[in-house]
């Protein structure tokens, strides 16, 4: 952050929208800007009031190329916007490069996400090194509708302006670190020889043979797939991956979303199954197992139908395993179950747990 003495020395900030982008209806620009300010006012005592003429603290403009502030824009892509730190005159002012296409949806570039970041600067925040933070310098491919201000940004802004007067203090999501021994995964799947570990908004992409891992926003790879997914598996017979959230699932063809969302009932689940905990395809059996609380279902990929006699108790089909499985994947003849920060290497032939590991044993920590 800037030094506290360089932040706004008042809590009531005014802003003015000087002009509009032709990319969006005016009302959508206004609502995106309003929502971007709310991101910051929700976690601090700051208030933002729009003025229509005269002086204001934060002047908002859509401009192109050289716009006479010694920081010319560069045409489409590249730099999307910039803002000045708090202060009089140009201080706090926020400029959007109108050579970009701004949107209200998840197409690039969502105006709300860009504006929320820039207003962080206009309030005195620098860039963050936290990849999941709003103040990370690169545009995030993340679902704007489910946006929550990350904790890193909350800590930054509250260090300048203090906490919200709300009796329930807001908290935000933290960015997972692969070597955190307490990391718990939402789902794990293989994809064409690589491993994908889903954790809240992110996926950790790892080659099991070693090498670097990447932390990526889920929507960077699959724009229409939501965050916080429940389960995922790869079916090498069809070459497709399926990811699940709630009573819906999406079909992935590599890095394309080929179909979805579709209802769980399409797979033959009874209507009372509202979500599944984990899913895995076992290659040599041609079966996919779905884990729901203390039971599991078996799906025959050849017949494309649920096997009869299911669901069965997990404790019966997988002795040693307990209910509420977070994630599971199949690798080289073995199953790897995840529960909280613990991983169980399971041998289906001997029906025994062979090894108990940390959930992040694949991360090379």
């Amino acid at each position: 952050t800037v030094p506290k003495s360089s932040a706004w020395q008042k809590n009531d900030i005014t802003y003015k929208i000087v002009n509009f982008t032709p990319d969006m209806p005016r009302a959508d620009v206004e609502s995106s800007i309003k929502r971007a300010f709310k991101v910051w006012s929700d976690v601090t005592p700051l208030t933002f009031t729009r003025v229509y003429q005269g002086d204001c603290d934060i002047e908002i403009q859509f401009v192109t190329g050289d716009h006479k502030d010694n920081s010319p824009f560069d045409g489409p892509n590249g730099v999307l916007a910039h803002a000045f730190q708090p202060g009089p005159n140009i201080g706090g002012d926020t400029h959007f490069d109108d050579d970009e296409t701004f949107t209200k949806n998840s197409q690039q570039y969502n105006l709300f996400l860009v504006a929320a970041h820039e207003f962080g600067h206009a309030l005195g925040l620098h860039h963050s090194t936290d990849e999941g933070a709003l103040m990370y310098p690169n545009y995030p491919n993340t679902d704007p509708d489910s946006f929550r201000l990350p904790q890193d940004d909350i800590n930054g802004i509250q260090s300048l302006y203090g906490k919200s007067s709300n009796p329930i203090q807001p908290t935000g999501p933290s960015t997972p670190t692969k070597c955190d021994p307490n990391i718990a995964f939402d789902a794990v799947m293989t994809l064409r020889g690589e491993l994908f570990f889903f954790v809240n908004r992110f996926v950790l992409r790892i080659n099991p043979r070693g090498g670097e891992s990447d932390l990526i926003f889920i929507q960077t790879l699959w724009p229409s797939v939501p965050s916080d997914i429940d389960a995922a598996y790869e079916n090498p017979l069809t070459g497709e991956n399926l990811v699940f959230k709630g009573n819906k699932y999406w079909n992935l063809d590599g890095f394309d979303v080929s179909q979805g969302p579709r209802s769980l009932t399409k797979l033959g689940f009874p209507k009372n199954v509202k979500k599944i905990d984990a899913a895995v395809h076992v290659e040599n059996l041609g079966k996919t197992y779905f884990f729901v609380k203390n039971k599991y279902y078996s799906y025959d990929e050849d017949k494309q139908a649920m096997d009869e006699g299911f669901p069965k108790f997990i404790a019966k089909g997988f002795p040693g395993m307990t209910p509420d499985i977070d994630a599971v994947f199949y690798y080289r003849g073995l199953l790897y179950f995840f529960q909280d920060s613990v991983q169980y290497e399971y041998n289906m032939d001997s029906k025994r747990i062979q090894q108990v590991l940390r959930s992040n044993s694949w991360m090379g920590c």
Partner: protein
Amino acid sequence: FPAASQEDLESKYAKMAQKYLERFYDLKTTGRPVGRNKNNNPFVKKLEEMQEFFGLEVTGKLDEKTVEMMEKPRCGVQDIGEYN
């Protein structure tokens, strides 16, 4: 097919990287120190600073991942450090 050499990558993206570091890492284009020691090269120093910030491998060289990161759309808040 011959593999593209590191040198090709560096010469291909040198200009882009120079502009990027000038804009976001305050790389000065004048007053370059004399000498061949890489530690004296402000371009390398700024490149290392950028690589460290983004959690990339700090090589001081324009490798593929660094170029990829530089090409990502981003915020251009270069004035925040200088404006008063």
